């Protein structure tokens, strides 16, 4: 099967001369759930903006769903790539939730019946069907974020880009967002999310791409990437605390640990093998 995203030797130089992307290449298969991490200024956001044409390559190629993005308008790419911006207030402007979610499909000049269907579908997916007539400004921050996701979902994109779903949120709202995104991935969307939250990456992402100074530093399965703590350190990133703890005792934990539960299980296994008594869970 053809990959849904194919990027080859992508370069981007901003008008002020800053060379933000210096030769980025990667492929993404349909249905992947990928976390993109890196310090601010490393190129993460610049990179994802090339996927729907918001930014144009200075050199290199970007193919999404078999199409050359450089030959497509942003409004055309919107049907394939949905971009959920970090701050939902950057896009919310309608008087009702329904209108907000309908805005995208209306721009695609769909029939009223089609628009209705999509709005119901999108709001259902984010659990906000009952809020159709509400005023977006009256919603809580977490609800507004989900509204923003719904208004992107109604375009029925194959690929979803989620920019920092947990930044500036409390733990519960952030978790709810990522659970939602995971459900969407399970429903078939290819998901790329940008984040600084390592435990969330360990919990949700199948694959991690690390950016540094406009290039990809690491790209692989989550366990594999977090296993390379020394490399991560070169860009001042650290794996989740529990991973670091296991890495400090390699004689007992040779494999990368991604969660507290895993660590507890592995520790208890080791202890049991050594004849220690353990209370069953």
């Amino acid at each position, binding site marked *: 099967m053809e990959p849904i995203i194919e990027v080859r030797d992508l370069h981007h130089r901003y008008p002020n001369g800053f060379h933000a992307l210096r030769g980025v290449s990667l492929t993404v298969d349909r249905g992947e759930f990928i976390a993109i991490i890196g310090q601010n200024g490393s190129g993460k956001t610049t990179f994802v903006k090339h996927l729907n044409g918001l930014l144009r390559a200075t050199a290199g190629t970007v193919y999404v769903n078999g199409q050359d993005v450089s030959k497509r308008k*942003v409004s055309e790419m*919107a049907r394939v790539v949905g*971009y959920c*911006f970090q701050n939902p207030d950057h*896009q919310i402007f309608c008087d009702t939730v329904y209108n907000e979610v309908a805005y995208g499909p209306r721009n695609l000049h769909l029939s009223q019946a089609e628009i209705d269907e999509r709005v119901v579908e999108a709001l259902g997916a984010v659990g906000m069907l009952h809020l159709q007539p509400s005023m977006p400004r009256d919603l809580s921050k977490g609800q507004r974020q989900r509204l923003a996701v719904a208004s992107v979902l109604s375009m029925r994109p194959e690929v979803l880009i989620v920019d920092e779903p947990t930044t500036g949120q409390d733990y519960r709202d952030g978790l709810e967002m990522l659970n939602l995104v995971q459900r969407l991935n399970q429903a078939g969307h290819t998901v790329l999310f940008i984040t600084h939250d390592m435990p969330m990456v360990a919990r949700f992402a199948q694959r991690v791409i690390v950016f540094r100074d406009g290039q990809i530093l690491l790209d692989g399965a989550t366990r594999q990437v977090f296993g390379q703590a020394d490399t991560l350190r070169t860009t001042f990133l650290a794996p989740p605390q529990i991973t670091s703890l296991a890495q400090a005792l390699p004689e007992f934990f040779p494999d990368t640990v991604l969660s507290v539960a895993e660590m507890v299980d592995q520790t208890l296994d080791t202890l049991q093998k050594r004849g220690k008594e353990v209370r069953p869970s």
Partner: protein
Amino acid sequence: MMEYVPRRSLIHDLHPVTKLAWSLTVLILALVFNNPWYLAAVILSVVLVGLMGKVVKETLVYLGAMLLVSAFVFLFQVLFRPGGQVLFTVFPSSWPMVGGWLPVTEGGVLYGFAMSLRMLCIISAFPVILTTTQPRDLVMAMVDTLHVPYDYAFMFTTALRFMPIVMAEVSTISQAQRSRAYAVEGWNPIRKLQAFGPIAMPIVFIAIEKADRLGLCMDLRGYGAKGRTYLRMLKLRFPDWAALALMAIVIIGSIVAATQGYGWIVIPQ
């Protein structure tokens, strides 16, 4: 373009009040004369001051940008303020119906030059001042020396500081909406106005919210009471007094000259 350029120069060292007085002098000269040659000379003098301030490049770039506007002023005057001898007509007389319309007259051309040069003259001082004076010093000069209320002077620096940030927010909003297939297509002005909503609404809400937060932060740091001091309290020194004296002479001299008929031409009606 109009940002402070940190350099060492004679003009940079002058007190902001002196520079403000200079822009007033240029304004007076622009109004006193209407002879295009005299006005051009005033503009040249401004460029010379820019040279002394080592900001010629920035000054000329700005004036170049203003040329388009002044060209419009010129065209407008030529076409709608006719007087005196007709030089030619835009529509040749041989044409049916519109033949001989829109005459270009001697008076119009002279008036056009005079007005467009006058406009350039009046605005030419600003880039020189803004590129050679730190906004905080302008604020201090306005409040401390000229007794402008602090709130008004402060608005000026605040606008300068937040313009780039607000522009960045607008850019993000635009990107977010374009990602939902927002596109402003065609030339239909009604459509263009409708298309404002998705960009204008979010920025207005964000701006109001942030302005509120900013106001709170300022209050928490004691903003608003009388007796404000400034880290840099500049004083008028000898070069400032000399410059001010020179300006006074130039103003008086130019008014006298104008009443004697120099620098003033009669434009045929």
